[in-house]
């Protein structure tokens, strides 16, 4: 329970940052998305099931806070969490490039699912080149941001798991 309470506090803080400082740090329409990195960590270290549930919750909160139609971020983030969990089977977890490449790939996946779902329900008709541009820029930007963030968030997650096991 404590782990989820800490996650909730962390998500709230990251959401407040994302709608204020980070929203003004965009490059060509792409902004850093630290929540993707947090969802990636939960998916990678706690499995696809927990990754999907955590992603859905974070995505729903993100939709509420950013003013987007509810369900878009929820769908995109649950796919991110689930894909991160499935990735455990095919990647070497101690690879030093894991944070960068993982965050870049999952950010790209998030944008594609998000725009695809918005297009599916008639909310957006974006030009394909524009989507590709934002996917590539967003993936590179978040990949770079992931490098310092990943280890901090990973250490926090490890400490929370250790605390739970010791308190049993």
């Amino acid at each position: 329970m404590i782990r989820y309470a800490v996650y909730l506090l962390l998500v709230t803080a990251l959401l407040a940052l994302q709608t204020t400082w980070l929203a003004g740090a965009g490059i060509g329409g792409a902004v850093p998305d630290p929540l993707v990195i947090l969802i990636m960590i939960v998916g990678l270290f706690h499995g696809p099931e927990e990754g999907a549930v955590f992603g859905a919750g974070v995505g729903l909160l993100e939709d509420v806070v950013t003013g987007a139609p509810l369900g878009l971020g929820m769908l995109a983030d649950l796919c991110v969490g689930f894909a991160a969990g499935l990735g455990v089977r095919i990647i070497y977890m101690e690879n030093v490039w894991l944070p960068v490449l993982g965050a870049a790939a999952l950010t790209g996946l998030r944008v594609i699912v998000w725009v695809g779902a918005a297009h599916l329900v008639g909310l957006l008709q974006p030009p394909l080149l524009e989507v590709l541009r934002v996917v590539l820029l967003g993936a590179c930007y978040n990949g770079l941001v992931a490098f310092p963030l990943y280890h901090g968030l990973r250490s926090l997650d490890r400490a929370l798991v250790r605390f739970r096991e010791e308190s049993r």
Partner: protein
Amino acid sequence: MLLDAVGRRRRFVVFVVLCILSLGVLTDQVRAPDRRRAGWLAFAVEGVLAPFTAGLSRIGDKVGAARAMLTEIGTLHGENARLRIEVARLRAENAQLQEASKEALRLRSLLAFKQQPYHTISARVIGRDPSHWFSTVLIDRGAADGIRRNDPVVTSEGLVGRVIETAGSWTRVLLLLDPRSAAGVLVGQSRDAGVAEGQGQPMLRVKYLSRDSDIRPGDQVVTAGLGEIYPRGLPVGRVVSVSRTEADLFQEALVRPDADLRHLEEMLILVSAGQVAR
């Protein structure tokens, strides 16, 4: 047997169920007015988060102002000289405009023109939608100040959008550029009517313009005042290009908004008279 199969594939079952749930929520949203229905969830979450975003936004503003002051010291001397010339020019222009204003007042009284009664409430932006595709901002005034859903929002340059959600001390504004936004407009000297729609891009698309109308780049676009949301005559933007083919029933225009919607900091909410909180 079925339960065993479900147990073995539990992770995929969870994934599929969550996907169906989120698509269900999304399709419900699409049918809602403004393509968003957050209800009590938004009020609860924003009620907790709005004070934090307001605080962070203020800190960000102060840091930005300090950084700008440091970088601008060198340019202030030249800027000062340029501003002196600008003041002299504006004084002359002001004298001319005062004359024009008096004339307009006389003509208005002759026509018994009735200005729609609006009060303005100034507000600061405390949060933005970070996504590239939708455009909403959160401001630091709310229902407690008399703001209601669908109140128009402007800056000194022109129309910004309208209110879609409001509670105690915060309000969410749907910007003109958002794909969920549409406003009735009049274009150019010919005053042809059309609908300005956001498309998630820096330009608005004005649709349903008569194919015979003479619309050119540079023409001013203003609100038509035909709906119940925007008053007539608010500046919206200027025509950048017009597309017209032989096969089309209507022509379309791309319009650059007058207000700088990507860098909003302060704005005014137009509130009907009698609606302002005392």
